[in-house]
């Protein structure tokens, strides 16, 4: 294979990786856009009722949200471009099927951007009672935006709202496409994930501060308020995930077969943890000693039949190991987090006075942010790679949707460099903000600001 051939004939591999990278990066930022307003609302309300530490924390978090929202907005724009640049074959055929959902998502994002602009810049200029109300449209638009974007993704898993007659796409009903049968569970799953990621990340950051000795009310609130959100979302998530998995068993049985590493259709299918699928079976894994557990989870019966990979030809099967590993990592982390919040609940009701005095719990907290992000990313890998080789399940193959552009390797490498730079710089900026707060600064004036102008020499 010559390099020339690589560049021109095979845009599929770099295009898929570029999409994965763009989505994987953006989704983390999107979580904060969706979930921060609700946490801010709680803090701001406490602040409006006289809690100075809560108000200061809300002020800080609004600044953090401003930075995260900015890079979220621009990375979201890249995704919009990529829908056409990388997948013109998808958009030219189905752009008008899923377009309404994207348009409504655009409106949601518009509302969020407008109110964020007002909220972040209204400190000291609006009374607290009025100021906090600016968060409500953001909470709602975050939820509606998540719904519409998940609607498009769930449509790719459960395409509906059109007919194909003689190769032509006809009878389009964009509303039916939005309310496809997969949307509800996928939406709930992602909404909960967004709240978990944002909440656990804030818990992590403030737990580190707590363990380093910054044991003031501000840090206490920085742990407890997001922890309350996480403690509600985390136990619900496995239940939603379970029903989403059962829906997959009916709708995308090959995706489920890849998750299980199940080569042929069988009944009484066990669950095998770990191991490696060698093309015929999973080797080296540990079988859970409950016979037919996978059958039960998928079909509510221990001896139910589960469809295997060989139900379809090899070229219609997804890469099994990526899907399996990702799924098991997601479930593993989700279970761990559920155990942790169970303990949190116990401790809150039994030892509230000394709630934060358990260093092991705090150490566990410091890991929850990264853990929840990994769980969300592996969840996305499970569903996206599990749908391959289809971009629209059963209807349009990814290789038929991809661009024939000869630039995809270049843009992939470019994107890697730019996003590494952007995330590193963003991380650096947030870290420096945190250090300046710890050092007692409040306004975080820019180096060009009037109060720092004496620092400038020329």
């Amino acid at each position: 294979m010559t390099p020339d051939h690589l560049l021109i004939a095979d845009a599929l591999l770099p295009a898929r990786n570029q999409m994965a990278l763009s989505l994987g990066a953006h989704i983390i930022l999107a979580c904060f856009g969706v979930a921060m307003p609700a946490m801010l609302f709680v803090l701001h309300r406490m602040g409006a009722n006289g809690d100075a530490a809560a108000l200061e924390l809300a002020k800080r978090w609004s600044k953090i949200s401003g930075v995260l929202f900015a890079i979220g907005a621009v990375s979201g724009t890249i995704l919009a471009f990529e829908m056409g640049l990388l997948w013109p074959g998808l958009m030219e055929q189905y752009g008008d099927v899923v377009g309404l959902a994207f348009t409504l998502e655009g409106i949601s994002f518009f509302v969020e951007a407008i109110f964020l602009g007002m909220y972040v810049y209204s400190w000291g200029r609006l009374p607290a009672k009025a100021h906090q109300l600016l968060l409500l449209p953001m909470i709602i638009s975050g939820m509606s935006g998540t719904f519409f974007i998940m609607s498009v993704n769930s449509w790719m898993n459960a395409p509906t709202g059109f007919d194909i007659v003689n190769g032509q796409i006809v009878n389009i009903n964009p509303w039916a496409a939005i309310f496809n049968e997969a949307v509800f569970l996928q939406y709930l799953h992602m909404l909960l994930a967004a709240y978990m990621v944002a909440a656990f990340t804030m818990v992590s950051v403030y737990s580190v501060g707590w363990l380093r000795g910054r044991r003031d009310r501000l840090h206490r609130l920085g742990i407890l308020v997001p922890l309350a959100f996480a403690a509600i979302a985390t136990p619900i998530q496995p239940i939603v995930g379970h029903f989403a998995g059962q829906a997959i068993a009916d709708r995308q049985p090959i995706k489920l077969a890849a998750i299980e590493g199940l080569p042929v259709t069988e009944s009484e299918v066990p669950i095998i943890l770990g191991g490696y699928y060698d093309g015929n079976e999973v080797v080296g894994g540990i079988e859970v000693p409950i016979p037919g557990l996978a059958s039960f989870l998928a079909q509510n019966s221990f001896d139910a039949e589960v469809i295997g990979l060989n139900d379809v030809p090899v070229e219609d099967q997804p890469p099994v190991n990526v899907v399996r590993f990702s799924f098991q990592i997601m479930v593993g982390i989700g279970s761990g987090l559920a155990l942790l919040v169970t303990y949190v609940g116990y401790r809150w009701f039994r030892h509230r006075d000394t709630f934060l005095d358990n260093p092991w719990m705090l150490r566990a907290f410091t890991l929850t942010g990264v853990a929840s992000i990994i769980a969300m990313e592996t969840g996305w890998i499970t569903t996206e790679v599990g749908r391959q080789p289809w971009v629209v399940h059963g209807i349009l193959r990814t290789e038929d949707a991809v661009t024939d552009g000869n630039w995809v390797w270049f843009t992939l490498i470019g994107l890697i460099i730019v996003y590494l730079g952007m995330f590193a710089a963003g991380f650096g900026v947030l870290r420096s903000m945190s250090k300046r707060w710890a050092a007692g600064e409040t306004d975080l004036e820019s180096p060009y600001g009037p109060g720092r102008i004496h620092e400038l020499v020329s």
Partner: protein
Amino acid sequence: MSAADAVAAVMFAAVTLYAVSAGADFGTGLWDLLAGGPKKGAPMRRLIDKALGPVWEANHVWLIFVIVLLWSGFPRPFATIMRELAIPFWFVGLGIVLRGSGFAFRKFAPTLQAARLAGIVFAGSSFVTPFFLGTIAGAIASGRVGTGVEDEVIWLSPTSILGGILATATCAFLAAVFLTEEADRSGDVELAEELRLKAFITAAVTGMVALFGTVPLRDDAPTLFDGLTSRGAPEIILSTVAGLATLHFLRRRQLRTARIAAVIAVAAIVLGWGFGQYPWILVDSVTIEEGAGHPATLTALLVAAGLAALIVTPALVMLYRLADTNRLSH
């Protein structure tokens, strides 16, 4: 008016709003670059931070709206545009990422060095991005997209280059007028006068580019030229008048009125392009009717646009009023 025409009209209204609002934001890049060393340039950069901070993200969303309406309402022309104009779109994407993150990071940069680096990234990408957007517009308007032109880079044709220069100049002009008013309002007379001069110069340059730019259009983009001199002529005349009015109001230091005149001048020229290329969505290749998606989607998009007008307009007015009355700042 057919449903396809109506969706195209909504889309073009969004293009115009993007050009006017985000155009002013992008245009600040040039003045930020030229503001001088850290101390000398501090007032200008502070002004730009303050002016853009609350509004740039909302202004940016118009572009996303345009892209989404294009693929929803006109999926096949959208795919053609993205296939044939991928390279300038990637530059636009790069510019947008660098502009947004550069701007957000500069505000909270801990040190002067970090702020300068973020500032150069923000200002440089702000300056470059409209150029590539302009080349995209030029390629479509000149009848090179979807028409099988193969012996040239279609986004580097004379019309594209004109589009790029005109977009860049227009942004700088809008930004200068907006910032003059902003500086005046914040009481910095010296900076306001400096910006007023910049506004004069860029108004003259932009006017010249627009005026003499039409000369190559006659041969390079005949369909657009015919449209601009017939259906689009009222908008072009309006733009000229509004441009001259901007100069007049700038001279008399009626800065708020000058700002309105500048907005009209730019909006009119963008609308002139739209009327000029009607009924084509891709000039000389696909008409609005031919390129339109399914009727049910077009109807739904119009419903969504109505919804957007009801929800977004009051919110946007509120944002601008808060920003305008100096109640928002930081």
